[in-house]
């Protein structure tokens, strides 16, 4: 009995150790257990990546070592479509830092913009600075706290933003209080005239329709872009026409090209999303089982 217990414990410890071991076939530069997760930094095929798990499909953020300005992930390139809706945001809020990819990109693109970046995990901020060349400019502020709390505080202070980027979901976990009608209403109240919200989220699972219903409930029509990730785009005061988007895309083309953003790839993806069942339940602070809904079937 005692022996069986001990061998069981050893099994568990071995499993835990394997979870904490580095990704296969990659050079690990850094590994730490933060307050919230395991953080791995590794290099592979000319990319330096941050991952919250040993599996490389769980990469949060990657930087091309030879061209640090280039956006490696589809989702990051899709995010730039937010600028097609509002080409020159002066105040930007980014919820979720990762390797600092998005703040760095916006700093380069819009040096005069005031950027607030919010990240719950202080270790992620440290790693972004040390390994991903994230260097906040004079107009960028970094806050280490829960994104929802930050949004609520800014709301009370009557602060507004021209662009809010929601990038707080990792490869498997959703902070459930950041996918509810009440949260989106708080974000909406932060948006100035023609303010844009761009949310990076999941493209497959039962959650998809709930998320659609919730965004529609708060904002009305929204654009949905879909690759491995899902990007939701909304604009206060109504979505722009195809013509306006194409016009902005053309204006921004030279600026966005070094980031690897091709308007011929991005523009056709921008479509108004429709077609979830009318009975789909809206997620609220009272009802938000997002992680259960997002679980693989």
């Amino acid at each position, binding site marked *: 009995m005692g022996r069986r217990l001990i061998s069981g414990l050893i099994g568990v410890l071995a499993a835990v150790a394997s979870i904490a071991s580095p990704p296969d076939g990659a050079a690990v530069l850094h590994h730490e257990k933060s*307050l*919230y997760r395991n953080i791995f930094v590794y290099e592979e095929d000319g990319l330096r990546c941050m991952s919250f798990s040993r599996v490389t499909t769980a990469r949060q953020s990657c930087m091309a070592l030879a061209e640090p300005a280039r956006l490696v992930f589809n989702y990051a390139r899709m995010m730039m479509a937010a600028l097609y809706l509002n080409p020159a945001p002066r105040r930007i809020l980014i919820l979720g830092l990762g390797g600092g990819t998005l703040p760095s990109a916006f700093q380069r693109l819009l040096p005069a913009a005031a950027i607030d970046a919010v990240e*719950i995990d202080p270790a992620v901020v440290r790693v972004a600075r040390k390994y991903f060349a994230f260097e906040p400019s004079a107009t960028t502020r970094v806050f280490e*706290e*829960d*994104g*929802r*709390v930050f949004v*609520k*505080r800014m709301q*009370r202070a009557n602060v507004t933003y021209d662009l809010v980027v929601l990038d707080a979901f990792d490869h498997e976990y959703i*902070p*459930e*209080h950041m996918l*509810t009608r*009440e*949260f989106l209403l708080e974000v909406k109240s932060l948006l100035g005239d023609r303010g844009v919200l761009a949310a990076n989220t999941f493209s497959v699972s039962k959650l998809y329709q709930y998320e659609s219903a919730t965004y529609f409930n708060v904002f009305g029509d929204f654009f949905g872009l879909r690759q491995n990730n899902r990007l939701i785009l909304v604009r206060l005061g109504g979505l722009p026409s195809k013509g306006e988007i194409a016009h902005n895309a053309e204006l921004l083309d030279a600026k966005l090209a070094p980031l690897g953003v091709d308007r011929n790839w991005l523009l056709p993806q921008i479509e108004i999303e429709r077609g979830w069942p009318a009975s789909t339940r809206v997620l*609220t*602070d*009272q*009802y*938000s*089982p997002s992680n*259960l*809904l997002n679980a693989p079937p």
Partner: protein
Amino acid sequence: MPTAQRLVVYLVAGWSGYYVMAIELLSGRILAPSFGNSIYVWGGIITVFMVALSVGYLAGGHLSVFAPTQTKLAGLLLIAAAATLPIVLFGDAVLDWLFNRVHDPRYASLIASSTLFFVPTAVSGMVSPYAVRLLATSVRATGRSAGLLFFVSTFGSAAGTILTSFYMVLWFEVNQIFTGMIAVSALVGFAALALRDGQAPD
């Protein structure tokens, strides 16, 4: 003590265990919109629940010295249920008020949890030691009945944790879960009153 009444005492203790853990789990949901989901918020919540339970054990043990009855045990369950009602009715208002005044998530979480959850949790904590006293028939059997009671109440806690986190939040709104649990407490409490000494068959 007749079997039916012993069963009622175990039922009260088991349900009380369920109740505490279900509330603790939901408390994270209730606090998250105002104070987030950081490790500090959970730290505050768990601290308050542990302190409340420890105070409850002390008070329940003390109360059991004075003419213990099943009526009073049922009363504890009903009081805990009544003390939960303010969470449903005034929870948002309390959190809103605190949000504007306390900015450190650690103290915000401690204060919010204490305000909303301390009383129902402490009263629930009184149930177990009080139930031990009701079940105790002889000094020799005290450890065994205490062991069985802790088994039932902690098993209830486990059930409250898994049912709430895996299923209830998928089917119901937070306030609906609270209201349902208050209703079950009332049901169990009044059943315990109806089956108290002298009225039970045999």
